[in-house]
């Protein structure tokens, strides 16, 4: 057995079923193994960036680890954006890159790049394989690190001579151990007791859920705790779907593009219980004035997130599911007297409900050009018809913000968005990966015309493997979100935001053999999306939208949460 085969056998043992990638000279030995006998299916993409984002979408939608592969130098460098994105959003991805032979490393050989150096700050960990006998433990270690603790991307850089070298006494390792890596999963009981007490005694409590709750599959526990204590829940962008957003206690998203009532609730709360979130600036606005009246409880699996951006009163280190289960147990044992304090909060509940009524938005769904909110409303109908099996991916820009703000996601892992990095072109490949992981689901990618053109060449991949992702383009012939900032903050000086020569997306789809329709009338939106889904093919619904519609309400950058810009 050689190194390349050891890699593939190791991956099979780890349960890998799919690899997204593109081969090249320095990784040919691995692909040669894949050629005859492997249970792993490889999907060739049209760009390595798509391969890594597909692996990320695969992981986000399924909770399994996504795998991607590329050759050395240019192939590996094309993974950089996707790895950074996965690192920011805590997505478990394993990337394998070919490398020039160890004997050539350091000599600027053809297609040599210092991939371990380049990816050090954007991976949870990375390896350069220097001895063939290290392959089995490295594969085991890579999947272990990617998937445990706070998940993240791990890269294995695999020199060609090590791929070819034979391994004596090949054995698959049963376990792997890192002296410096012992994630704390179980929370400290004292902290749990303090947190529950603080929430029980609160008059204006609020829960802020991040993506960590979804990663840890803790949605049920979160909802149970919220219901038991009667506390409303707001979420971050990655936390969408942690609890059903149409639940009476769910407030929708918070932050720069959140709901007004969520932002008001954060600013007025006396106890804020944040779990699985890193308090990004998109959530806090100016952190100095974030939740000024609240005692903050912060639970996270990554101790370095606690106290990083926001000062915390009750820190809890642990896995979200275990934290919430422990809190539930303590809360259930509470005395009648303690529980009766719940009544004190009816005032608070009423205040929140009042904000909800006060700030409900009136949208003219019949307007021409089409209001983007209409598209969200039509897609919402599709979600509501089968929430469990409808996955929504988004690109980046206003398309994403409309969905973040207006869409009710009802299940975890059905909302895929590039949260931390905000990468245009991520949505379509994530949708591809999600569809591969969950073939029974309907996958829609909510796209901008700018973002979609960053990765649209992979319509070819969809055709090859029968991946019927439906792309819904909010077509405003511009880099709309930036154009909007120019309107709001740069005196309408529209520097370089017009996209003049957008393709005819119907013809584009036709060239690939995909389904497409252009829509310009509000009445045709719903029908077109249905037809696209019915076609069973990769599809584009190209919808001309009002380019001047502003994403209101909005917290200006560096602003305070309850001071939102509005019409």
């Amino acid at each position, binding site marked *: 057995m050689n190194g390349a085969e050891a890699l593939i056998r190791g991956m099979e043992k780890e349960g890998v079923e799919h690899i997204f990638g593109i081969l090249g000279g320095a990784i040919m030995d691995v692909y040669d193994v894949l050629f005859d006998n492997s249970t792993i299916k490889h999907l060739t993409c049209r760009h390595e960036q798509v391969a890594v984002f597909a692996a990320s979408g695969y992981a986000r939608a399924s909770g399994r680890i996504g795998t991607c592969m590329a050759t050395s130098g240019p192939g590996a460098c094309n993974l950089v954006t996707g790895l950074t994105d996965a690192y920011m959003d805590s997505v478990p991805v394993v990337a394998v890159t070919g490398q020039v032979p160890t004997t050539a490393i350091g000599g600027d050989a053809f297609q040599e790049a210092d991939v*371990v150096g380049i990816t050090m700050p954007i991976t949870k*960990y990375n390896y350069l394989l220097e001895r063939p006998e290290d392959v089995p433990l490295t594969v085991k270690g890579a999947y272990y690190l990617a998937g445990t603790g706070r998940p993240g991307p791990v890269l294995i850089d695999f020199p060609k001579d090590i791929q070819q070298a034979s391994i004596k006494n090949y054995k698959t390792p049963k376990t792997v151990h890192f*002296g*410096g890596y012992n994630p704390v999963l179980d929370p400290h009981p004292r902290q749990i007791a303090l947190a529950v007490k603080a929430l029980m005694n609160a008059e204006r409590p609020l829960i802020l859920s991040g993506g960590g709750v979804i990663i840890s599959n803790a949605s049920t526990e979160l909802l149970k705790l919220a219901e038991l204590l009667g506390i409303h829940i707001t979420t971050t962008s990655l936390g969408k779907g942690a609890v059903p957003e149409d639940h009476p206690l769910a407030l929708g998203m918070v932050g720069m593009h959140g709901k007004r009532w969520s932002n008001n609730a954060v600013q007025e709360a006396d106890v804020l219980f944040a779990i699985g979130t890193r308090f990004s600036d998109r959530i806090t606005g100016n952190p100095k004035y974030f939740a000024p009246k609240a005692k903050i409880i912060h639970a996270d699996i990554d101790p*370095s997130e606690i106290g990083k951006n926001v000062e915390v009163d009750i820190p809890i280190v642990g896995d979200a599911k275990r934290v919430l289960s422990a809190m539930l147990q303590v809360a259930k044992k509470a005395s009648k007297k303690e529980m009766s304090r719940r009544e004190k909060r009816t005032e608070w509940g009423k205040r929140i409900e009042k904000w909800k009524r006060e700030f409900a938005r009136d949208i003219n769904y019949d307007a021409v050009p089409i209001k983007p909110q209409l598209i969200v409303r039509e897609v919402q109908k599709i979600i509501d018809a089968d929430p469990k099996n409808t996955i929504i991916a988004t690109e980046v820009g206003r398309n994403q913000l409309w969905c973040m703000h207006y869409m009710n996601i009802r299940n975890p892992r059905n909302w895929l968005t590039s949260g931390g990095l905000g990468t245009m072109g991520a949505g379509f490949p994530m949708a591809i990966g999600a569809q591969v992981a969950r073939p029974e689901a309907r996958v829609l990618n909510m796209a901008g015309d700018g973002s979609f053109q960053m990765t649209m060449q992979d319509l070819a991949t969809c055709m090859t493997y029968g991946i019927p992702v439906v792309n819904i383009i909010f077509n405003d012939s511009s880099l709309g979100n930036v154009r909007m900032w120019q309107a709001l903050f740069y005196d309408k000086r529209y520097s370089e935001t017009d996209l003049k020569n957008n393709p005819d997306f119907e013809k584009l789809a036709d060239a690939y053999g995909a389904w497409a329709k252009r829509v310009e009338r509000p009445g045709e939106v719903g029908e077109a999306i249905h037809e696209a889904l019915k076609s069973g093919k990769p599809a584009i619904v190209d919808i001309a939208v009002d380019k001047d519609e502003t994403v209101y309400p909005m917290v200006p950058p560096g602003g305070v949460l309850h001071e939102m810009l509005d019409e």
Partner: protein
Amino acid sequence: MGEKIHILVALVENKPGVMQRISGMFSRRGFNIDSLSVGTTEDPHHSRMTITVRGDNRVLEQVVKQMNKLIPVIKVRDLSEKTSVSRELCLIKVSTSKQDSRAEIAQYVDIFRGNIIDVSLDSMIVEITGDTDKINAFIKLMQPYGIKEVSRTGITAMHRGHKSVKDQKK
């Protein structure tokens, strides 16, 4: 706000690239390193680093947490001045072209318990060990003679008494 110099000691895996991971993390997150020294330990699998960083307690807490987050970092300890000893080695090449300077410098070296380890016609190299203050003081004394070159190792440090870094939890 309470900015101080802290001495951190880290036990790390003895593997290529570990230094790069740590120094990269420091620069990426905007932490200021005053000095960093590395060497092997009694266990060939581990290296030991001593890092001096500048910052208030909040910065220090983040530095420690971010270091712990790196996979090859096994343990990090913040050594307080009171319960630890720290030393630095410094080589100073100083000019001896002025009259009588050779004898004067030799006297200073004696007082500071240093060593003269190289002598040439118009310069000598002095080796001096101690904590940062002592070395700074010696360098100041040498300035009037004309310092040609200074090389400092950075601080290395240890707990006083029985306690060792290995005994502590990560």
